[in-house]
Structure formats: C-alpha cells, structure tokens
C-alpha cells in the first residue's frame, strides 16, 4: 500500500518554516545614541545580577566565577560592572616597602593614604640628598673642627703622658727608651750616649746588676703600657664617635623635623622616620665619606648606605581615583603574586627591598581583579597560590621555590601585605563544574557564579534590541553604516548561529567578526554603507576559508569514493546524516547506513561499537532501537533475529543517537525486504515507543545532503526526513528554501517511526487494527511476519538440534 499524496503533504515542512525571516525593523539607533555596556548584553540579566550582587557583598568568599562561552564578551561586562562599583568605592591605600634597619632580610611594608605614596618616596629621596650635603657640611664647621682638635690633643696628651712618664722612670735608672721603626728598645745610657758591651763590661758588677734589674723592671712596665695602648685608642675612637654622632644627630634632627610634621597623622610613617633618624646617626661616617664609589671589588659600595633610605613604592593610586579594576592577561605566578628581582654582582645574585615588585593581586588590592580561569589553572602553582592568598587575606611575596621549601639560600622575606580584593575569574562552564566538583575549597572562595546565556529568545522586542546592539557594535568598531536589510540579514544569521529559528546567539565575538567582514566587503566596492550583499559576501567568504574538509568529502562522494546513492531504492540501506564540528565551523554530510538480518538469538549488533568506533550515546541509541523493534513487532514471540548495523566507510568515531531512526528504518527494510528511497536522507533519534525525537545540527545536516543532490541535479525526488520537534530550529540557506519552494527538494518533519518509514519506503507502514493485526502487504506486517517466521525457524532448529543430541 503506497503512501498517499495527502499523507506526504501532511508531513512536508511548509516553506515559511524553513527559514524565519527577520521582519522590518521598527527603529534603528541613531548614531548619537549610546548604549551602556551592560545594556548591550541582551538577556544576560542572570549574569548581570550575579555580578552586581557579588560586587556589593563585601564579605569573604564572595568572589565570582563568570561562566560562559569564549567570545561572549564576559570580560567586558565583568569589567564594566566592576568599574561601576569601583567608582563608588574610592582609591585604596598606597603601599611601599622600606628597609628594615634591624633585620634587612625582612623588608617592612608601609601603607599610606591613596596618592601620598609618591610624595613620601620623593620626600625620602630629597632627605637623603640633603643629608649627603648637610652632614658633611656639619663636619666642616669650625665648632666641630675645634672640638675634634681638642679631642685629638687630649688623646695625644694621654699617650704622650704615658711615654713621658715611662721615659722619666727609665731616665731615673739611667735607661733610655729608644723607638725603632716597629717598637721600642731599652738601653742603658751614660752622658746621653748608649753604653756598648765594652763599656758595660767595664762597669762594676753591682752597677751591671742594677742596670739589668732596672731594664727588667722597665721591660714589664713597657709591656704593660704597650698593652694599654689599644684601650687608649678605643677610648679615643669612642669619644670621636660620640662627637660625630652628636653632630649628625643634630643635623638629622633638623632635616627630619619637616618630614615628621608632614606625616604626623601617620604613626607608622613616624615610627619609620624615627628608625631612619637612628640609622643615619649610626651611619654618620658613611655620610662623611662622600668620595664616590669604592673599589669595584669591595663587597659594599659606600654609597649603598644612602640607598637604604629609598622607598620602594609598589602600589600607588591617584588620591581622587576609584578602586582599581585590573585585568591580568598573563597570570603567571610572579605576575600575580609579585616577585623579588635580583641583579648580578661579581658573579653572585644579590637583591634588596628595592627590588620587590608587586603582582596583580596587590595592584588590584582594594578593588577588583579579573583573571582567565584556563590561564590561572594551567600556570604552575598559580591556583594554589591564589587560594592561599584569599584564605590568608594577605599577600606574601616569595618565589614558588621558597614557598615549597626547595631553596635554602638566604633571600628576602618581605612583610606580607593585607589583601582585600574581589576576584573575578572568567572561564568556560566545564571548568567551573570541574572545580566545583573536585576542588573542595573552590565553592567557599567563589560563592557567586555569573552564568552567561549562549542565546536569547527571538521575541519581537529582543529583535529590536538586537538591532540596537548591532548598531552599537558598528559604532564601537567605527564601521560603515549598515542598511536595514543588512541588519535583518545579520539578525537571521544570529538565529542560524544559535541553531534555532526562535533564538538569537549572544556570542559577541562572532557578531563582531561578521560586522567587520561585511564592512570590509562594502569598502572593497567603495560603498558608503554596508548592504545585505556585503553581509552575504562576508558569510560566504568565511565559509570558503573554512570548508576545505567539507569540500573534500563532497568531492569524494561525487567521485563515488564515498558511496552515497541519491536515486533509486535499496533494501537495508539508508542515507543517514552526520555533522562534523571543526570548532569554528561545522557542516553536515550524508553517510550510508546499512543493516543485514538473519535468524538469530535476538541481538542487534552495532558494528561501530564492536570495533570501539562508536561512542556511548550511539550504542545507547542502537540498544533503544533494538528494544523498540522487539516490543513493537515481536511482543509475543522471542526475537529470533540477528541484525547488524554499520556506518559504511566511516573510519573515525561515531557518537550521538541522531541516526537511530535511520538505523531502525534500515533494519526494518532488511527484515521486510521493502526497499528504501535513496533520494531521501534521514535524521532523528527514536525512543523505545517509536517516537522520533529532536537532534542537533539539523540545518547543517539538511544543507549537507542538499549540496550533494544539488550537484547531481535536483529532480523533485530529493529530500530529508527530520524530527518534527526540530522544525523550530530550521534556519536554512535561502538556496534551499528556494529549491523547496520550487518543489525540487522536500523536507519532511516526522513525529513517529511510521511516518519516517512512509516517506523513506513510499509505502503505507500500516497500523494495527482492533484485533491487533497490521494490514496485509504493509511494511509493518511484513516485518512482523518475518520475525514470527524467524522465531519458528529458530524453534525448529532448536528441536532438531535436541533430537540429534538424543540420538547420539
């Protein structure tokens, strides 16, 4: 029983449903109109509300993870909303590192009100410059010279007195104290002349003994005085140091007076200035030795003393600025946390507090920091370091090696800086869900998820809003004006991008790409505005750039390398439709699905699965169709069938269940031996009750089969069977719409397996009557009868095998 024209007509998708055209636009935005950034994100209310909420709640853990597809301008919106909030908050404090005079390895962190950091740094620099002149000048003063002279004279007098008294003591015994270049010699004298051995021998024995005894006594005294000399020198140095400190102290006090007055409202700075004062006094000598750098091999350059008072301003803000909003595009460890740089000196790496550098966390401290999830997670140590900072609410600048204890060399351990920052991580959904699932600390630190929608409902209002968004993007990229028809064409394309005639894609990047490329083609033809042809040229150009793989497949089909029939009929063979997704481009193409059947034990073999080329969902689809087959056609007999299904010439993986209707039809054709029309391709998934369900990529699939048929010549027999539930997704190319309009191509929307069978076989499949029987000479009747025969044969075979076993 063939299918009637009425039946076919009832399943044919009307032309107007193949592509939902954009209606004329009521009002376009004038060039003067401006659109707030947040408003330019259509239907992202959920994400906008989440972001605003997170930015308003100043509590721990209210950091945000912005979920959404790449290119949806999540950064722009997050930055705009963070900026909105930042403008209400005001600038956070400036931060600087200064020398820790008591423990230079632990530099001190100082905070100043916003805008005062630069001034403080300059003040300290000026102070050092003044001190370098003022302190030496103080030591050139007449008063100091007089005091120094008096001190030196006093010390010399003490030394001289020591020697004079010794000389006097010695002279009393007739002994002279002679000075050699390196020491002293005690020698007996007579008439101011040293006695030699001959004269000594001529002396009376008593005198000789006296002289020797006197020299021995004086030797002890001489030794004692020599030993006392260092103490005298030390005493002199001590008094000299005290004098120098007194002079320095006075000078430094005068120098610091103004500074202390200027920073009297900042106790931390005052305490630091006190330390500076003490240290300058202790290092008075360095200020006096201003002869320039020392010898190159000296470990420490004398001028380095002055560097110890420099201020390393690591974070500074304008006083009237708003809270910072920082986007760190390269969130490596050092870029995020900060680092301590080193410089090479005499073959060694050295550092000091002036080489501490702030990372993005400190730059954004008191404000908002935007990071890319993928980059944060793929840069070594960054994710753990970020969480550590958020937990500790402070930033400790140290290298990862130090954090992990891998280095034992002495380095700086800067004082941690308190952290108060709102982190906004932008990433794809799967990253959010993985983190949420596997990182137990994640949900506590990122309590807010701002989820970006991929598309927006294509309501009348939204279409108008979308047109305004397009105009806004046109202006922001300084493009040529777009005609109404061009904008309408773009709106239609955005529905196509969403894969749904009732929705519009919110993927801003691809929208921008289309606008820019259309603008290019308009400029190429030296037009003053972009028209619909330019949009079409942009779309076609983009397709040409990406469709090499598609073209190769089409060529292979046309050259019969890939076997696809588009005419005639064949038992157990159907044209399925497959989609290949290349990331930024996807296309459909037909695949030949074949099925074979024989008597068996009730199993339907999915060859793709057997060779591990089929994915789990595909296997699920085959199992469902197997179940649908047995429940529909052999409810009362054992399914005594062995069937096998395969995607012919498919050498890559196959997944998804969108071919399950086609697979079941091929199987039923094989069982019933009713041929399937090769001019029709089929897509759709099926459930156990025979209901045809929606699938993805329906537009690409139809276009893929249409292209093959078009190249071979459309004769009106060609068409595609698709799920009825996918009709709303249709946004087909105008070329196909025209072909359908001209009745050279057909698209059928089916709800049930029988409808698909009817189109594919051209036969009425038949419905069970009141007695539960399918009408004779129908596809379904043939299938049922064949399955009953299979069951009988199997029983006979089993009985025959049993009697053989008994006889044996």
């Amino acid at each position: 029983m063939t299918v009637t024209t009425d039946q076919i007509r009832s399943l044919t998708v009307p032309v107007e449903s193949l592509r939902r055209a954009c209606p004329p636009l009521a009002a376009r935005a004038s060039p003067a109109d401006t659109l707030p950034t947040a408003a330019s994100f259509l239907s992202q209310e959920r994400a906008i509300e989440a972001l605003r909420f997170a930015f308003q709640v100043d509590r721990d853990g209210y950091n945000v993870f912005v979920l959404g597809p790449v290119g949806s301008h999540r950064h722009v919106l997050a930055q705009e909303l963070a900026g909105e909030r930042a403008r209400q908050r005001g600038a956070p404090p400036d931060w600087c590192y200064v020398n820790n005079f008591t423990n230079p390895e632990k530099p001190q962190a100082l905070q100043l009100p916003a805008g005062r950091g630069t001034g403080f740094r300059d003040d300290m620099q000026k102070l050092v410059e003044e001190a370098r002149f003022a302190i030496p000048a103080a030591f050139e003063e007449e008063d100091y010279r007089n005091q120094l002279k008096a001190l030196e004279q006093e010390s010399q007098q003490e030394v001289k007195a020591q020697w004079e008294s010794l000389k006097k003591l010695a002279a009393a015994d007739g002994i002279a104290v002679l000075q050699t270049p390196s020491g002293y010699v005690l020698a007996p004298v007579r008439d101011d002349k040293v006695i030699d051995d001959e004269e000594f021998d001529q002396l009376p024995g008593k005198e000789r003994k006296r002289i020797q005894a006197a020299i021995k006594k004086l030797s002890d005294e001489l030794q004692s005085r020599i030993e006392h000399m260092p103490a005298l020198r030390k005493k002199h140095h001590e008094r000299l140091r005290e004098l120098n400190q007194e002079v320095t102290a006075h000078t430094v006090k005068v120098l610091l007076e103004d500074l202390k007055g200027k920073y009297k409202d900042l106790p931390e700075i005052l305490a630091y200035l006190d330390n500076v004062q003490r240290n300058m006094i202790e290092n008075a000598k360095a200020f006096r030795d201003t002869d320039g750098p020392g010898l190159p091999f000296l470990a420490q350059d004398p001028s380095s003393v002055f560097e110890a008072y420099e201020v390393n301003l690591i974070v500074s803000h304008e006083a009237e600025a708003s809270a910072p909003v920082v986007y760190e595009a390269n969130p490596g460890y050092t870029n995020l946390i900060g680092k301590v740089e080193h410089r090479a000196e005499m073959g060694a790496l050295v550092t000091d507090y002036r080489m501490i550098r702030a990372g993005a966390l400190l730059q954004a401290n008191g404000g908002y920091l935007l990071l890319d999830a993928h980059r944060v997670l793929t840069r070594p140590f960054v994710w753990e370091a970020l969480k550590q900072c958020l937990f500790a609410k402070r930033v400790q600048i140290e290298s990862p090696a130090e954090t992990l204890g891998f280095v034992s060399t002495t380095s700086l351990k800067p004082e941690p800086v308190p952290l108060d920052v709102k982190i906004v991580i932008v990433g794809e959904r799967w990253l959010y869900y993985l983190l949420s699932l596997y990182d137990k600390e994640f949900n506590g630190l990122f309590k807010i998820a701002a989820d970006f929608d991929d598309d927006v409902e294509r309501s009348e209002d939204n279409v108008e809003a979308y047109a305004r968004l397009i105009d806004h993007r046109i202006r922001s990229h300084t493009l040529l004006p777009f005609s109404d028809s061009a904008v309408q064409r773009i709106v239609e394309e955005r529905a196509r991008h969403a894969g749904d005639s009732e929705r519009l894609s919110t993927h801003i990047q691809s929208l921008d790409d289309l606008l820019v490329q259309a603008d290019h083609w308009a400029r190429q033809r030296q037009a003053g505005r972009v028209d619909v042809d330019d949009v079409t040229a942009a779309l076609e150009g983009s397709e040409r750039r990406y469709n090499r793989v598609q073209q190769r497949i089409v060529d292979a089909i046309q050259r019969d390398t890939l076997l696809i029939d588009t005419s005639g009929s064949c038992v157990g063979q159907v044209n399925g439709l497959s989609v290949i997704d290349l990331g930024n481009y996807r296309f459909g193409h037909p695949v030949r699905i074949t099925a074979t059947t024989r008597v068996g034990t009730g199993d339907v073999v999915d060859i793709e699965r057997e060779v591990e080329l089929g994915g789990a969902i595909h296997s699920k689809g085959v199992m469902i169709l197997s179940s649908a087959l047995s429940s529909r056609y052999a409810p009362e007999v054992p399914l005594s069938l062995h069937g096998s299904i395969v995607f012919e010439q498919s050498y890559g993986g196959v997944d998804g269940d969108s071919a399950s209707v086609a697979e079941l039809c091929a199987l039923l054709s094989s069982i019933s031996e009713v041929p399937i029309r090769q001019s029709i391709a089929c897509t759709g998934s099926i459930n156990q009750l025979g209901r045809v369900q929606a699938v993805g990529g329906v537009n690409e699939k139809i276009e893929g089969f249409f292209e093959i048929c078009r190249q071979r010549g459309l004769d009106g027999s060609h068409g595609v069977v698709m799920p009825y539930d996918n009709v709303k997704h249709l946004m087909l190319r105008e070329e196909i719409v025209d072909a359908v309009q001209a009745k050279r191509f057909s698209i059928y929307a089916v709800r049930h397996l029988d409808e698909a069978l009817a189109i594919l076989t051209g036969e009425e499949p038949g419905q069970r009557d009141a007695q539960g029987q399918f009408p004779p000479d129908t596809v379904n009747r043939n299938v049922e009868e064949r399955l009953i025969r299979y069951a009988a044969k199997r029983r006979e075979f089993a009985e025959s095998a049993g009697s053989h076993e008994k006889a044996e």
Partner: protein
Amino acid sequence: MKKRNEGRRIILAVTETSSLPALWRAAKEHLEHPHDEVMTFLLLDDRWRRAASLPFTREFSRISGSHKNFTPWRAAQIDEAAAASLARQLQALAAETQRQIAFEVLSEHNAADILGQLSVTADVLIVSSELKRRPVYAKLIELRCQLLFVDSEE
C-alpha cells in the same frame, strides 16, 4: 773659595727621624739658581749598634708588646732602612724639582770633620734641630758658614 757664578751650595744635615719636607722648605728659601747645589747628609749615631752589642737588650713590638733579642743584624737593618727611606724621598724630591740632590750617610763621630770641610764652600748648612741633643751639636755651632736649625722632629 767659590766664585759667585758657580751657584750656591746648600747642605742638609738630617737624622733618621727628621722630616725631610720641613728641611726642604727651609732649603728652598735659599735656592736661587737652577745650578745651585744641594747636598744631604744623614747623620747616624751608633746607638743601635751599641744597644745591640749588649746581651740583654730586647726590642718590644709596638703592636703587641711581645719582644725578641735586639741583635746587631737588627741594628744594621734599622740604619739601612732609614738610609733607604731618605734616599727614596730625595729621589722623589729631585724628580719633582728637577735638581740634582747629592746624598751621603755619615757616622756621627766623623760627621763634624766632614761637614767642617764642606762648610768652607757651603752657603748654608740646614740642620735638623734634633741634632741639638746630640754630641755633634757642639762641633756644628763652631762652623763658619750660615747655620740654620729647623724643627723637623716628627
């Protein structure tokens, strides 16, 4: 007697502890012509030799107070070091002033005779004031040339 056009002859008499710059400053005031002659004599008494001849003399280190025997070798070393040091200073001075400066070491006991003979042709004899305390002083003041004592003790 020397003729007026032969140039002046200045004699410096110094000890090992004299400050040569002070004596040279005094000498410069008497130098008039590039051909003026400068002769320097280091007058060494033999106190180091004499002290070293005694078996019990020790030299005490100025730094530590430690001591060791004061030997004749050490005595000679001190005299040689003093002469060498003065020679170096004079060499530098000669190079600086582009003058010939003669240098001799004299023992104090024959210094008076030699200086006495030289003083006949000398214009000025500049003597380190330390020598006032030495026996040679008595003979120096009897010389007929212009005698100038300069306080040059360090």
